[in-house]
């Protein structure tokens, strides 16, 4: 994140529509060759942020730099970026080749040269032979790759993806996201990627920026975000988490509902805190063992794992048995155990 000379620099940018603030004083950088994801629930301002990088929305205040140049006042067609749209936005009246040639010809490139470039990119994306088709004659996955080829052919300083997988079915989604990541690493592309799907974000990103209500909630590597969420919202948004409100004593012991357990406080001040525990970090034990005792309220067998909901003094806890070997039943008395390093203490 140190070298942003070839990437995007978003400097204290805000976007207001009348009295509504869509993006509020947001700063971040995308270094050259890095894939950064903007992640957040719908309406958090991530798409607006992306569109401000593209030049499709004007900023209300702040500065946008691309490749070190201030482009804040430049329109979309004067910026060295290109974008893959959620709907792909392929021109329905043009063939695949015409679509891919569109950008170079806009830049007044010689037509033969444009075609050559387009063929190269189409070949790279495994679309050779489809040049003469219309977008309507392609499958969803092929359309998506044409959209990528059309953006790549300009070799922009920054490539923008706006929820590129949301129009694909679940199986294809996993494959395409791998392809995008491989392509990005192969060509060391600078990419800003928007999604609301946290799994997708974890899978493709070098860095993730989580947005909430127009602000950045936290940024970091996928690992940092998952293992050390900075707030209750983040712990809940990325992956599953059990959230328990309680008290932290000075000797690093967490208590709620009359039951105390040792935790790693990580410098959180004693007092009212929230404990976040990933369901797979909890273990079911026989009754009487473990930190907590409780009763199985619901059991769901998912094949790869079993999900339990256990009623305890800390409330209902979600517990995953990843091995799917334990065979507890509803209303069984059980114990819940965890390592003190496996929980996250969040100030409240």
């Amino acid at each position, binding site marked *: 994140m140190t070298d942003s000379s070839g990437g995007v620099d978003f400097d204290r940018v805000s*976007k207001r529509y009348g009295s509504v603030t869509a993006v509020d004083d947001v700063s971040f950088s995308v270094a050259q060759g890095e894939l950064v994801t903007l992640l957040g629930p*719908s309406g958090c301002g991530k*798409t607006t942020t992306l569109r401000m990088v*593209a*030049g*499709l*929305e*004007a*900023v*209300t205040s702040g500065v946008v730099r691309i490749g070190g140049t201030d482009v804040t*006042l*430049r*329109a*979309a*067609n*004067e*910026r060295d*970026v*290109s*974008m893959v*749209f*959620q*709907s*792909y*936005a*392929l*021109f*329905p*009246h043009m063939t695949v080749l015409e679509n891919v040639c*569109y*950008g170079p010809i*806009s*830049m007044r490139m010689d037509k033969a040269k444009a075609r050559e470039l387009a063929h190269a990119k189409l070949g790279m994306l495994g679309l050779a032979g489809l040049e003469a088709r*219309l*977008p*309507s*004659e*392609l499958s969803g996955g092929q*359309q998506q790759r044409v959209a990528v080829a*059309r*953006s790549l052919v*300009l070799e922009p300083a920054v490539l*923008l993806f*706006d*929820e590129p997988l949301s*129009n694909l079915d679940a199986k294809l989604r996993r494959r395409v996201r791998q392809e995008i990541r491989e392509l990005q690493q192969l060509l060391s592309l600078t990419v800003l990627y928007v999604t609301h799907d946290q799994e997708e974000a974890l899978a493709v990103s070098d860095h993730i920026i989580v947005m909430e209500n127009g602000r950045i909630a936290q940024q970091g590597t996928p690992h940092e975000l998952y293992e050390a969420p900075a707030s209750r919202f983040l712990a809940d948004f990325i992956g599953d988490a059990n959230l328990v409100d309680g008290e932290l004593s000075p000797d690093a012991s967490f208590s709620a509902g009359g039951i105390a357990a040792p935790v790693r406080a990580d410098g959180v001040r004693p007092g009212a805190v929230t404990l976040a525990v990933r369901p797979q970090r909890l273990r079911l034990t026989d009754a009487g063992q473990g930190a907590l005792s409780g009763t199985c309220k619901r059991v769901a067998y998912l094949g790869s794992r079993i999900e339990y909901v256990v009623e305890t003094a800390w409330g209902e806890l979600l517990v995953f048995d990843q091995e799917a070997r334990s065979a507890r039943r509803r209303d069984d008395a059980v114990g819940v155990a965890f390592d003190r390093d496996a929980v996250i203490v969040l100030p409240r």
Partner: protein
Amino acid sequence: MAATALASPVFVPAARDRATIVVAGTAVLALAMLPWALAGGPSALARALAGDATAWPLLVAAALAVVTAWRGVDRATAALAGGAVLWSLAVAFAAGQNGPSFGLGAALALTALTICFARAIARRGVFAGDPTVATIVVVIAALLVLFIFFPVAKSLVAALFDNRGGFAPQLAVQRLFTADIWGVACLSGGTRCGVAINSAMLATIVGVGATLLGLVFALVVQRGGRRYAGILKLMSILPIVTPPFVIALALVVLFGRTGLVTGWLDSWFGIPRSRWLYGLPGVTLAQLLTFSPIAFMILYGALAAISPALEEAAQTLRASRARVFRTVTWPLLRPALANAFLLSFVESLADFGNPIVLAGNFEVLSTKIFFAVAGAQHDPGRAAALAAVLLGLTLLAFWLQQRWIGKLSYVTVSGKGDGGIPGKLPRSLWYACFGTAAFWIFFTLVCYAIILVGGFVKDIGRGDMTLTLHHFAQGFGMDFQSKGTMFSGSAWDSLFTTIEVAAVSAPLTAAIGLLSAYVITRHRFVGRRAFEFLTMVSFAIPGTVIGVSYIVAFNVAPLELTGGMAILVLCFVFRNMPVGVRAGVAALAQIDKTLDEASSTLRASTVRTLTEVIVPLLRPAILATLVFSFTHAMTAVSAVIFLATAKYNLATVYIIGRVEAGEYPLAIAYSSVLILVMLVALIVVQMFVGEARLGRRAPPVLATGN
């Protein structure tokens, strides 16, 4: 306006704008080289050198604008270009008749300076910094003000002056509130009512009648099954290709004093010949025949939009067919009924072709306006007052439509297609509808048959059915000589002018209408709503009012257009452009906005996005608008009857002239030719559009981003 626009976030292009310099340079060249006045003669520069002091500020401002554009001082460029335009207009309108009329040089220079102004303010941040959008909006808005608002306002103001030009407000009051307009004597047994009362009465009767007939057809076609789809096709095409007086002509042939039916009734039943047709009954009949297809189209759409599932639900709740119709179908139709009524009402008010043939002593506003200008009385002030009343009534109807129906619409289309078969009508209702529709269709067909046959017989108006080609020879005779073909028929001139005017105005209408639609739907800028209103407003102005206004406003310098072909083209372009705007807005709603954005992120300029993406995708809408404006230009009467001249005569005006001279056979022959020409045009274009749709398969799913 500029201040608020600057406060909102915008893009400002960095470098100096070459196009602005070129446009400003064009203005300077036009001022220096082209004749300023319509009559020709010296350029603005030459006039200034010859001592015309008023030209200097314009010349200096235009020259300076080139310099400031070159140096990128956009604020100064905007002020200079805008100031130059305002100054020229002020000088020209202040001089009025005493000054020169704008000619080629003036038109070019002022247009260029207006574009220069638009581009410069865009670069200052207005219109989100997009010079192309700024140019489109400013130029179209200026044209609309010049060719809609200015003439209408000027003609309405004429009501305040007496016929020698003196200011006489009391006369305006007198003119507006005379018993000639508002008298209600006929309601209480007197002989005649005022024209406004007559018009309103006629429009109400026609509104109710056309709506009911439209409903009957809609029920038959929608609920009667596929068998009656032909009616749909017929009813949607007939009003497009029928000049507004054709039905009236056919009625005269059938029911006039010497008409075919009148004759039979006389000889077989001893019912004496009379002139009952001329007046309220005849006009009502003609307008019902003319406008019920329009009501039908509205009601058919509404009926088709009612989900069959709703009626099926009612049926499963044990409702009888009659109860389903009464409690579900009818209430859901009410908004469309109101809409159909108001539209027929307005059409009847504005109609000129039928009353001029059939009204006789029953005076209505549209014809009265015409006679106030064209007749022996020549009283422009009176015409203006009548035009104000007509405009007021029309606007009131549109206002009601907006206020009342806007809130009334029930949305029953859920997006997901509900299965189900449209319910059957209650049996008695079905027979009543079917009977009425069958009779009316028969009647309509007879009318058209009269028109098609009438040209080939000696005098169908008097029942002389001897076959002859005399009328066609008279109208469309050709002499084949060694030097080439001579178009010796008396109708050729007007037919050629009509086709020429229609062919010139159609592409202009489509261009202006669709460009307006593009900026309205695709761009956000301050004043967008006002601009949208501006583009749609001419829709609500009756043709007669436009005609009078053009005569009043464009008869004198600085805008001296009457007597030429340009005024006919302008009249058609600005009268028909709202249809282009509507077609464009509807079509653009189907084209995802991300296509524009994709084009933009692929480095395309706004112009390239327009020509490469928007225009190709709008092709069906463009063709529809072309067809509409072409056929409308060929069938229009009300506005252009004021503007056509002996030199530039139009087909419809020529036919009306034949009717007034009592030469029915020629009028009928010509009408049939006109209908034929338009049918051919329509079929050719439909083949064209049909092919365009087949050649390009359905576009991919165009989802909208969040």
